[in-house]
């Protein structure tokens, strides 16, 4: 078991390292200029060289992403519970939700900027608007797939709709909620970075855009790697929460990613 665990821990690092080595090697072999595709060694050198600037911008991105994500959890949970609990809300609201989710969020940013100005708030709102949908859908699915027998047991005890929702519906949909959080957190990063690219003077998105306009391509790639790393870190946080809150749904199995 410990051996298995060690392999489980080492493998992702080894694969990532192998990818970087391959990339480095390919750049060297085909003599790719660094303004087209910088080699990883140069990217990491840039990371260290500009660490203060990168730190400042990535904290801004992390901040807007987390605020947007938290709002998405609250909003998604609320909408999901309404849609899952009431057939009428489902019929009325679902097409609208799908329509909204189909809109490219980058097209929304200019409108949000008109309303709230550039910077932090558009990034938060964009992160929210991308991330809430999978949460709402998953929670609604969790509610909709309650076993009819379980519902019958509660109804025959005289439970009202509210009791069925709180005693079965919500606990039953928590595994679905936590599964969706893992998707939502990565989407929230996409949302905030998009918004920063279009309308901001801080954040990783802004940093990458201004770096590319100066042809500092290694810094652009450094920004991409930082966003990716933050995404992985937040995903891991979600997995830890999931493990703690919904142990019953996995019945003690070790397979959890």
């Amino acid at each position, binding site marked *: 078991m410990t051996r298995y665990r060690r392999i489980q821990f080492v493998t992702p690092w080894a694969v990532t390292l192998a990818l970087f080595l391959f990339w480095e090697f390919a750049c060297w072999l085909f003599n790719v200029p660094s303004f087209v595709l910088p080699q990883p060694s140069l990217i990491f050198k840039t990371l260290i060289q500009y660490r203060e600037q990168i730190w400042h911008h990535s904290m801004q991105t992390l901040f807007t992403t987390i605020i947007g994500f938290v709002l998405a959890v609250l909003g998604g949970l609320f909408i999901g519970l309404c849609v899952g609990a009431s057939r009428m809300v489902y019929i009325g609201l679902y097409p609208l939700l799908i329509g909204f989710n189909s809109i490219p969020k980058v097209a929304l940013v200019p409108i949000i900027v008109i309303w709230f100005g550039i910077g932090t708030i558009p990034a938060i709102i964009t992160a929210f608007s991308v991330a809430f949908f999978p949460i709402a859908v998953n929670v609604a699915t969790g509610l909709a797939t309650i076993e009819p027998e379980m519902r019958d*047991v509660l109804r025959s*005890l005289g439970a009202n709709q509210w009791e069925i929702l709180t*005693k079965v519906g919500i606990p039953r949909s928590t595994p679905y909620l936590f599964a969706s959080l893992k998707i939502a957190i990565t989407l929230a990063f996409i949302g905030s970075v998009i918004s920063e690219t279009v309308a901001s003077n801080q954040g990783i998105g802004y940093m990458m855009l201004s770096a590319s306009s100066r042809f500092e391509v290694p810094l652009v790639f450094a920004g991409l790697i930082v966003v990716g790393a933050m995404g992985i870190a937040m995903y891991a946080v979600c997995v830890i929460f999931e493990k703690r809150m919904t142990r*019953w*749904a996995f019945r003690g199995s070790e397979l959890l990613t």
Partner: protein
Amino acid sequence: MANSALVDMSDVALTYGEGEEAISAVENLNLTIEKGDFVAVVGPSGCGKSSLMKLLTGLLLPTSGEIYVGGQKVTKPVDGVGMAFQNSTLMPWRTTLSNIMLPFEIVEPHKRRLRSYRSEYVAAVERLLSSVGLGNFGQKFPWQLSGGMQQRANLCRALIHEPQLLMLDEPFGALDAFTREELWSVMQNLWLEKRFTAMLVTHDLREAAYLSNTVHVMSRRPGHIIHTKDIDIPRPRTLKTTFEPHFIDIVQSLREQISNEHGL
């Protein structure tokens, strides 16, 4: 109110769907259950047994006819019914003990009293758990128990609030033969002790004859009662009873009734 029976169904019909696609599940269904009685309803699958259960508990309302439970006409889900299904429907996020506490959280007057008298209620659950041989398993989650143990816990949850009517929908159907026979005895002991009113829906004739005082045989769809047989075997019945000629005769005659009706 028709008479003093706890359950009284007269000329009940239930139709699913409308127009040409309408399917008549039960028709001309007449059934009475006395208070404290244990009846079984048998018939092969698809004969409307489950519809009968849902009608009696008020989860479905009849298309025509009238159903009275405890002197009251059924127009909504009947309060304080206990139900146990084939798959155990225990909630995996609750411990076994907490699962069996569930009726107390919903059914009055327990719901009001639960906060102040919690320890008494927990003690009642633990007493019931140990009477079915699950004394030390209250803190385990249902998915940590075997199928037979889950079904015992399921029976406990259906019984804990002492419902006026206990509905059992093939509760032992998914278990292996040995566990099933073991649970017959558990079920009988519970009934002998508490004398609740129970209706067992099953396709296992031996199970019906072992557990019930009266067996009703249902017809093909649209279902109604075509034959009623009193089981005059003294209690407590044991597994040995099921090998005695009289028991075998009863099962045999039930079998013939079903064969005649269903051509099996």
